């Protein structure tokens, strides 16, 4: 059953069409990869689905309900969240408090419960040791995990991951992928936007490809990499 659907979503910034008529379907329990060159509209698509941008046209549905242009906090509470490409923890708070906020407002927990849950989530993502540290003082790799932890605390059904593995070493990427698989096994559905192709290919059941704001392919990972248009988009025409 499809959990999240986007139909014909377009977004224009002035004269620039960042997205034109993109469709997306995410089934329950699935991991969907989204790839595409820089500026192909991946982040814009995520922003349109989570209410950060209001789509110029098209419709977004979550669990069968229309959420097009609904406020971000409402979409979050319904169970759809995203991590940001540029990690922005609340630097004035500790790591634990960052996650705590997600539980307090995304899930509506009391302070007491949210604290326990936040600690459990930090254990899961491997940040328990730095829980008391200021969020501004931890490494980039840890911040990426913190971003994920903050999303998890809101009790989501779907997480949209926007280049959550950018700037990480191969070992770090592997451990993030491991974590994502585990979360998926526990029933969480994921949409993974990534620049690093291997990362997406390894984890996704299906992959869709964006180029210049349009969907140019959607298939199983192995089929997508063989697609002529995809190779063109990534490497230029002469390689195709």
């Amino acid at each position: 059953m499809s959990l999240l659907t986007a139909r014909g979503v377009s977004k224009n910034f002035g004269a620039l069409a960042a997205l034109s008529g993109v469709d997306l379907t995410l089934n329950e329990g699935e991991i969907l990869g989204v790839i595409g060159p820089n500026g192909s509209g991946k982040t814009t698509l995520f922003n349109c689905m989570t209410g950060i941008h209001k789509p110029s046209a098209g419709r977004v549905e979550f669990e069968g309900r229309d959420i097009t242009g609904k406020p971000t906090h409402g979409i979050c509470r319904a169970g759809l969240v995203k991590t940001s490409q540029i990690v922005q923890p609340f630097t004035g708070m500790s790591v634990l408090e960052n996650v705590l906020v997600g539980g307090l407002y995304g899930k509506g927990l009391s302070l007491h419960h949210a604290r326990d849950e936040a600690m459990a989530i930090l254990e899961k993502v491997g940040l328990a040791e730095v829980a008391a540290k200021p969020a501004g003082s931890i490494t980039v790799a840890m911040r990426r995990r913190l971003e994920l932890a903050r999303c998890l605390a809101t009790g989501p059904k779907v997480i949209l991951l926007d280049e959550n593995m950018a700037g990480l070493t191969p070992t770090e990427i592997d451990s993030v992928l491991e974590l994502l698989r585990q979360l998926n096994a526990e029933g969480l559905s994921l949409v993974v936007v990534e620049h690093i192709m291997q990362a997406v290919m390894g984890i996704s059941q299906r992959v869709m490809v964006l180029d210049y704001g349009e969907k140019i392919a959607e298939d199983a990972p192995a089929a997508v990499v063989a697609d002529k248009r995809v190779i063109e988009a990534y490497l230029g025409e002469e390689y195709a």
Partner: protein
Amino acid sequence: MPVKRTGFFIGLLVAVLFALLPFAGESYYIQLLTVIFYWIGLAACWNLMCGYTGYIDFGSAAYTGIGAYVAGIIMVRSGLPLLTTIPLAGLGAGVIALAVGWPTLRLRGAYFAIATFALAEALMQVAEEWTGLTEGGIGITIPQRLEEFDYYWLYLFLAALVVAITWWVEHHKHGYALKAIHEDEHAAAQVGINTHTIKLKTYVTSAFFIGMLGALEGSRLGYFKPDDVFDVHITIKMVIMSLLGGMGTVLGPVIGATFLQLIEDYLGAQFLNFYLVIIGAIIVCVIIFLPRGIVGSTIERLRLKFRRQP
């Protein structure tokens, strides 16, 4: 959290001790303290909104003015007892805050600063011109007055209440939302915080208390004109007191208001313009050299010191 509770009880104890002070006499100090409590109350209201959310209100005098006029007009027209008009004055201020905050708190902070700044000026003009309601520039005489000590207790109570609310906000759920909003509103919305509603609630609460304080002060003055209660200098003092003490801290406005009011009492009001030049210079220096205020900067320094130890 035992440490936090201790802080709260110490604060409560101090407030109770001050409440007992009038029985010990010395009316000069009582008068000075009355004024200090009034300003602690106002500065704490300003800090609650602006210090915690980072949205700057440059027109808080709008709410002291609304409060004073709502209470004053009701007393003159209907003869309701003073203490009944005080909450009504707070409501009046709250309604205006809701109307102004609703559109502007969705936009960049600059729009909020601009709208509030213009609001105070516009309301003062309305009070000047709408003579049928406000008597305009002739001024309004308040028919009822409380005892000197009653103002002392009421201001102490309101100031303590606002400081206690700030303390509560700091340590409870609401405070995390405000901190998150202050740091990054987009990120706050993404973890499920309804940023607009929370800002609006905080703003209306703050205006409600400013309105009540303004109404009490109006009756304490006994007679006032629009430029007394909508005076831009009221806003200026609220800003500078919070800023000096440290915005976004519980004790900041308490320390800032006490400090500034003592200086003002010492210097007297005769150098008013020159005094404001100095105040302006202090603001500029604080922003450049001590951006977190006295309390904030001290906390920061202590924290750094603490952190360096292994």
